[in-house]
């Protein structure tokens, strides 16, 4: 009997140790999966915020740029933090006539389309597209092209017209949208 019992404590201890190790591994694995899921969500948010920051950056640059340079395409790379960055492009689309205005100088709406791609860790990526209109004094060639229009390319404004008057320097976000990964350019 004594011979048969010898070594039992070791076997029982090893079994116990194996069991406890399994518990610990299962708990660690579960925690790791949850951490990964939470991180993925965070990276997606980071990419979205980076894309948004890109649009804001381009908007600020366009607003402070000399009018003569507005037609030059803008391309910037912005690093927000380690592993979080964005590529932003802005292109001049053209001028809008018939803005409601009471200015002595004819005003036009300079339209821009801004596309910003935010990137973060684990391939998280988001593309956003925004439209911007800046009210600027109309360039000479534009004034010529709208001269034949009723009102000479300007629309009435003020209380009588029921519309607010726009002023040079004002700007509007005309649109904003998230772009699906495989979407064509609008």
């Amino acid at each position, binding site marked *: 009997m004594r011979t048969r019992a010898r070594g039992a*404590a070791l076997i029982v201890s090893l079994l116990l140790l194996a069991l406890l190790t399994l518990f610990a591994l299962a708990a660690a694995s579960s925690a790791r999966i949850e951490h990964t899921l939470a991180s993925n969500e965070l990276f997606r948010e980071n990419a979205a915020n980076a894309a948004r920051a890109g649009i804001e950056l381009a908007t600020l640059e366009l607003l402070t740029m000399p009018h003569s340079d507005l037609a030059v395409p803008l391309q910037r790379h912005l690093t927000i933090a380690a592993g979080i960055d964005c590529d932003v492009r802005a292109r001049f*689309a053209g001028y809008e006539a018939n803005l409601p205005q009471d200015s002595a100088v004819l005003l036009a709406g300079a339209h821009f389309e801004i596309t910003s791609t935010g990137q973060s860790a684990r391939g998280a990526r988001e593309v956003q597209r925004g*439209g911007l209109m800046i009210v600027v004094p109309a360039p000479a060639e534009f004034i010529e092209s709208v001269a034949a229009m009723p009102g000479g390319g300007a629309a009435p404004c003020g209380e009588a017209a029921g519309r607010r008057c726009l002023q040079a320097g004002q700007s509007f976000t005309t*649109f904003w949208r998230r772009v699906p990964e495989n979407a064509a350019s609008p």
Partner: protein
Amino acid sequence: MPELMIALAIAGITLAGAFTLLAHGRELLNANESMTQLQDQARHAVSVVAQDLEHAGSFGFGLDPATLSVVRDGDLARVIAGGDALRQDAPRVALPSSLHDCGGNFALDLALAVEASNNHFAAGVDASRCAPTASAGGAVPGADTLTVRHASGEPASPTPGKLQLYSRRFATQSGQVLFADGRAPGALDADRRVFDVVVRTYYIARNSVEREGWPALRAKTLTAVAGEPRFRDEEILPGVEDLQVQFGISDTASDVAVTRFVDPGAVELRDFPPLAVRVWMRIRADSSERGHRDERTWQYADAEFMPAAAEQVFRRTLVSRTVVLQGGPRGPRS
């Protein structure tokens, strides 16, 4: 023999401890899983509404609601109504009556990118056929209703019965055009596109599709059925018990930064348009949890909630998101 007895005794004690640990661990794991699932649901529910809100007020290439008009027969000159005649306090525009099911001009009032009712279900003025669908069992009392308006993110094809926007990049201030007969009133190219008008009203229903008495987040979305405009009522997520909304306004001279949040219907909203929207959603777990008692009082927005005894067995979470609205002018004001 004594060694074996001692080893067995130690093993017994250790195993008992290990199994107790295991049982507690299992309970914790279940609670953890329940919480993770609940948080997943909450994230999903709030992101659906937040994504809609992020696009609120974004209409094609942009528009000034004062110059927006409705045309027919694919002809820009055949104007049915425009400007203030598209507002909800104006007489109904002569379009298919189903377009007004949720209220006169409710679908056309694009000047209001967001609107909400406080602590009750409501859509537009004189909403005749906009009650929650029969299977929803009515709206949950005390929950807000939130309506969001914007255009589809991507261009669409002209479709009869759909309310659509013919948007011209260089006519944002001089007249964008709505139509609902599937006939675009002009050429289509990179600077002239058709977008679907999205009008969606979120509310909390008493019943979910699969469980009676189980609340759910639902939405009424403007779409087209058999060539006619219709508000389709669909469930988004079961388990959402409450929706609360507040609008961020700026009541100072700066008028760009949110200074405070007010409930829907607040008098301040007459003078100060919302710059941001904050939504709260209270969500309950799919099943009850052994040993869990939710006895706390939940306080958020203008809501206060303490679960009834029978409902305390469900784990809950509260999630909120603040979304800054797009559009609007920057720089000097006229």
